[in-house]
């Protein structure tokens, strides 16, 4: 805002001067609302919440500095240019000047977003930190159909697909995938790149439901930025593992929609050639076959070059060097990566037709396994003797190999989350697999541990040859839970437990005393037996007493709370109550889960 003379009494200071409504901002910037939206999205400008909403509470407020930031953005001028240019085209069209239209269409002004990417994310780590949304969006669009009516072009979909595969290939290559989770919404992946945990969601590989309550303009603007961002991020990542970035893929595999596999091979060869070594990998045979059909000349030559280098006879010294390097590299890798790298090291997987191939092709190599599938271009056939596991997802299978295990895809995901090889019995062909649990939940913090999580924990411990302490009784002094509670030494639940214990002990003691008394009085055992009915009321009494003491404990706890509340300020009391409500809600949720579990167990038995 330019400083100019303000008439007296019309001061603009404080909130009124620092925050501006959206309408005013649009007017100041002299752009249309859609352009403003686009600018905001691309520049990452978002509304702010002023302390006092001067122009009305229903309005959106932007910081004046943000708007000034947009004001100096060259993209704003570019958008104007584009708008004017479109008018030119329209005019030429109206005058039926065809070659003019053609010429104009040929040289439309474009803009680049690389500067904006750098501006928003000055360091690479910043970009990685914000990559979650970007990846989710790109993966979502990679599965969408191209729709001309919504201006979703085919090449953008292809670009998204390519970018997502490049990303996955990198993650798979560097073994930085950490967790996976199949949800109803899709498959979640969590990777760790440069210390940043990046989580993204890929939809299930099915025809997506396209709804009409979505404004694709907004989404496409976001996608525009995300595509650029992910392109640069991929470049940087590929650069870091010494691979040329826009990867040149084997067109044959590309045609078979195996871009991911093609990319993996590309990276593998690329990094190997650059390190000046040749190492016979799994894919060497198939690569030879892959040589035959290649379309474009330049690509062909480049790929061939790479392969030729790859097929050079192994130099003894070079191999030794490579081994040395491997050792060094292993030292650099952290414990986690090492663990991930070797999870499926000794296994060879084969995927049936019906399993989600892209996902598994991504995951299994990321954890060090070898994988093949049914179809052309696969590295090995189904009949391969060395296959240890075949991933199937169908009710039954006609012909089976005895040398391999037929497991459902969930096994892979569960193994990865548990970081151990789980026993396959429950995941075998045709069985209902055990519940698939989310790896993102901290069960201890949540307060409820599902049954299968406990099983997995035990298995993990067994794998590490550790012995878990059995959940037993702590040597606790059960002298007087009430008083302990009152002193604030133990919390309420513990107190309740202790009280129960004590009640039991008391009951036993009392019984003993009663019997002793009776013995003293000379009552025979038979008489006691006949008196059985009269024995019941005291037991009931004890129970009643027990209930009463429980109530008393509750009372003590409540009193404690009330007393502490009395001396709090109103603000603190409100906060306390809010905390308590939250806790109560959490407790209710857990109670509900426990109840349902009990019910389901009862159903299973009954």
């Amino acid at each position, binding site marked *: 805002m330019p400083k100019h003379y303000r008439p007296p009494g019309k001061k603009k200071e404080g909130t009124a001067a620092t925050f501006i409504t959206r309408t005013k901002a649009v007017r100041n910037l002299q752009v249309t609302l859609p352009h403003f939206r686009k600018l905001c999205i691309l520049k990452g400008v978002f509304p702010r919440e002023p302390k006092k909403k001067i122009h009305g509470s229903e309005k959106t407020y932007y910081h004046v500095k943000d708007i000034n930031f947009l004001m100096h953005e060259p993209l704003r001028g570019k958008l104007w240019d584009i708008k004017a240019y479109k008018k030119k085209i329209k005019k030429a069209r109206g005058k039926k000047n065809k070659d003019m239209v053609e*010429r104009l269409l040929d040289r439309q002004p474009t803009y680049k977003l690389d500067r904006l990417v*750098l501006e*928003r994310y000055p360091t690479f780590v910043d970009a990685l930190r*914000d990559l979650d949304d970007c990846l989710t969006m790109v993966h979502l669009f990679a599965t969408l159909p191209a729709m001309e009516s919504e201006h979703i072009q085919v090449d953008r979909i292809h670009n998204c697909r390519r970018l997502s595969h490049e990303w996955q290939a990198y993650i798979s290559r560097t073994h930085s995938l950490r967790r996976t989770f199949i949800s109803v919404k899709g498959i979640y992946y969590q990777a760790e790149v440069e210390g940043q945990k990046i989580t993204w969601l890929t*939809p299930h590989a099915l025809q997506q439901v396209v709804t009409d309550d979505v404004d694709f303009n907004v989404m496409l603007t976001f996608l525009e930025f995300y595509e650029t961002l992910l392109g*640069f991020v991929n470049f940087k990542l590929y650069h870091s593992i010494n691979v040329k970035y826009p990867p040149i893929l084997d067109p044959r595999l590309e045609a078979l929609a195996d871009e991911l596999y093609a990319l993996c091979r590309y990276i593998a060869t690329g990094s190997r050639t650059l390190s000046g070594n040749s190492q016979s990998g799994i894919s060497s045979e198939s690569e030879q076959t892959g040589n035959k059909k290649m379309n474009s000349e330049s690509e062909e030559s480049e790929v061939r070059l790479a392969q030729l280098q790859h097929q050079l006879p192994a130099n003894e010294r070079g191999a030794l060097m490579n081994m040395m390097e491997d050792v060094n590299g292993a030292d650099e890798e952290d414990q986690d990566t090492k663990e991930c790298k070797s999870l499926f090291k000794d296994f060879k997987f084969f995927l049936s037709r019906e399993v989600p191939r892209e996902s598994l092709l991504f995951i299994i190599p990321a954890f060090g396994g070898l994988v093949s599938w049914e179809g052309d271009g696969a590295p090995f056939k189904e009949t391969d003797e060395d296959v240890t596991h075949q991933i199937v997802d169908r009710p039954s299978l006609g012909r089976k190999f005895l040398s391999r295990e037929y497991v459902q895809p969930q096994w892979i995901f569960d193994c990865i989350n548990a970081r151990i090889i789980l026993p396959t019995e429950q995941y075998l062909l045709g069985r209902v697999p055990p519940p698939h*649990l989310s790896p993102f939940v901290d069960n201890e913090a949540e307060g409820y541990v599902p049954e299968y999580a406990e099983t997995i924990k035990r298995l993990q411990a067994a794998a590490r040859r550790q012995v878990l302490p059995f959940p037993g009784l702590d040597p606790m002094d059960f002298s007087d839970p009430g008083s302990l509670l009152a002193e604030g030494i133990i919390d309420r639940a513990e107190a309740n437990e202790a009280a129960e214990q004590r009640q039991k002990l008391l009951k036993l003691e009392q019984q003993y005393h009663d019997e002793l008394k009776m013995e003293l009085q000379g009552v025979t055992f038979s008489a006691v037996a006949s008196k059985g009915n009269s024995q019941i009321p005291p037991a009931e009494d004890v129970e009643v007493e027990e209930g009463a003491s429980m109530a008393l404990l509750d009372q003590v706890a409540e009193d404690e709370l009330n007393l502490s509340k009395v001396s709090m300020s109103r603000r603190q009391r409100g906060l306390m109550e809010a905390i308590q409500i939250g806790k109560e809600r959490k407790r209710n949720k857990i109670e509900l889960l426990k109840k349902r579990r009990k019910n389901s167990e009862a159903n299973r038995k009954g």
Partner: protein
Amino acid sequence: MAKLKIRDKKVKIAITKDKKKKDKADPEAVPELPAEYSSPTRDEEHSDSRDVSQSSDSELSCEINEVEGNDLHHPAEESDSSEDEVAPRNTIGDVPLEWYKDEEHIGYDIAGRKIKKHARKDKIESFLAGVDDSKNWRKIYDEYNDEEVELTKKEMKLIKRLLQGSTPHTEVDPYAPYVDWFDWEDKGHPLSNAPEPKRRFIPSKWEHKKVVKYIRAIRKGWIKFEKPEEEPRHYLLWGDDSTSAESKRQGLKYIPAPKPKLAGHEESYNPSLEYIPTQEEINSYQLMYEEDRPKFIPKRYESLRNVPAYENALKEGFDRCLDLYLCPRTRKKRINIDPESLKPKLPSRKDLKPYPSKCYLEYLGHSGPVKSVSVEISGQWLASGSTDGTIRLWEVETGRCLKVWEVGQPVNHVAWNPLPQLPILAASAGHDVLLLDTGLGDAEEQHRITELLHVEESASTDDRDLVSWAREEMYGGIRLKHTKAVANVEWHRKGDYFTTVMPKDILRTLPERLDCSRDTKAVLLHQLSKKQTHNPFKKLRGLAVSAVFHPTRSIFFISTKNHIRIYDLLKSKLINKLETGLQEVSSVAVHPGGDNLIVGSKEGKMCWFDMDLSSRPYKILKTHPKDITNVAFHRSYPLFASSSEDCTAYVFHGMVYSDLNQNPLIVPLEILRGHASSKYGGVLDCKFHPRQPWLFTAGADSVIKLYCH
């Protein structure tokens, strides 16, 4: 135009024929052309007047003839002759056939006889005939001549070609190169004599302009012929040095968007059974408010192949986009406070002992709610008044009921005289205040008391309109008859004066309601030694609730519903007015030091006033969920208590320091329970023992309890 074109075709056909002729023999065919030209037109004109089928028939036949036979007859002649050959059967002439629709004949022959129509076949017959005859499909009924015509194969071919839109004859080439029939060259006589226009030989100015424009555009680089080379789309954007990049970010401080919540167990495609809601629960979601309704209902699929595409995938992506660019972002401190840390740091309760914590004794005997208790100054005796119309005197330590006075009216309040040598009990029962001789103390004291409680009959007549002092007939003592029900009796510390409060009963004095806010007779002062009563206030604002004397000085506190007014009795003027901020004050107690005051209210709040500090509460304690009935200070220990309708009494530690800079310390100590709730309320009164840290509580369940440390 259309007609002309048709004719042109005919002409062309004619020409082709002509050419053939040329090929055959004579080049002199040229003069014949006009005749040829005219003949088909004539034919056509002629055929216009005739019936369609007839004309086509005749014409077609003639042309076929012509094609077949290569003889050089004139087609016009032939057509004439063909017409002559077969005379039309019909002689009605050129009139609509409709006119003869109902006639049996179709004209007359040359002899004048009727030409009969053929008998019409009916439909079945004609159908049967059609079925039998394999050539039936070729037959056409000629309505004009009333006869059936069978088309020949050739005719069928012609018709087919015509229907296809091609020339009827296969031999005819409609697109044969045109041969001009007029020789232009070297004739010297152009068709038009106009001179050649200038534009034919001068270069176009506009074209020139356009070319210049293009040239200029090319020169200036507006038109480029080769496309600009594409730069590599991606490059190393982030260099290696990350330190220098710190200053690059412009604008305001970036607030990263909060990451979306990660999926929990319930979002799994195959969650544990306990995460799946039952059908009833799902149904119950419908009854919830839309905000409370769970957004995601877990569902279980037996295997991965059964999982469908998520229908909200796009919507959720879009919502996230909207959140990212439309939601205001602010940094908010996450409330992750340990609730323990919220509790104020107070000294441990153990260090503040002794205080009443456990019920030690119960005084049983009353049959109605006990409204009030009072402890004698020595701490040996306890008096209690109940709504059952009795006042009882108890021995504190044993719980023995020493004496019962049957007053007959519900007792509101009892109060011992604060002087130890004058064990007189003041009790308010209905409209009266009784001063009772308890019969305690030695003989000398008894004598003094009886002397003090002696009232002459004449004394009552002095001030009849205020209060009448009279002898109590039954138990001895004095009965002060008031005009209204007395709620409170409080003694002055010296034991000579006492005050009574008569709050207006609002229900009974509805007409006087406006007046009642300025009731001057609500608070009265009585002097026992002189048996006198006087009204200290000319006017009194607000509804008086209770009145208390200052424990050391001659200061008088009157609490109205919202305020506490403090009067100096010697100067008889208002010293201070305390703003409680409460809705309705129910009780007041003064700290024995005299500078602090606690006020209980009917909304369950208790205010502590430090009168040196301010006229506003030093601390407001929200203790009880229901009305506070009474508050009390201990005379010597730093304790105070409140009793409430919710059947509890709270005990607090309330330390007042002699150092003026140090604020009073208030620590809640104990919640005393034990009274049962009844319809008359919970705990109606609480009083401390004068010497011990004991608390007496009077309950609506007609029990008095003693809580000891």
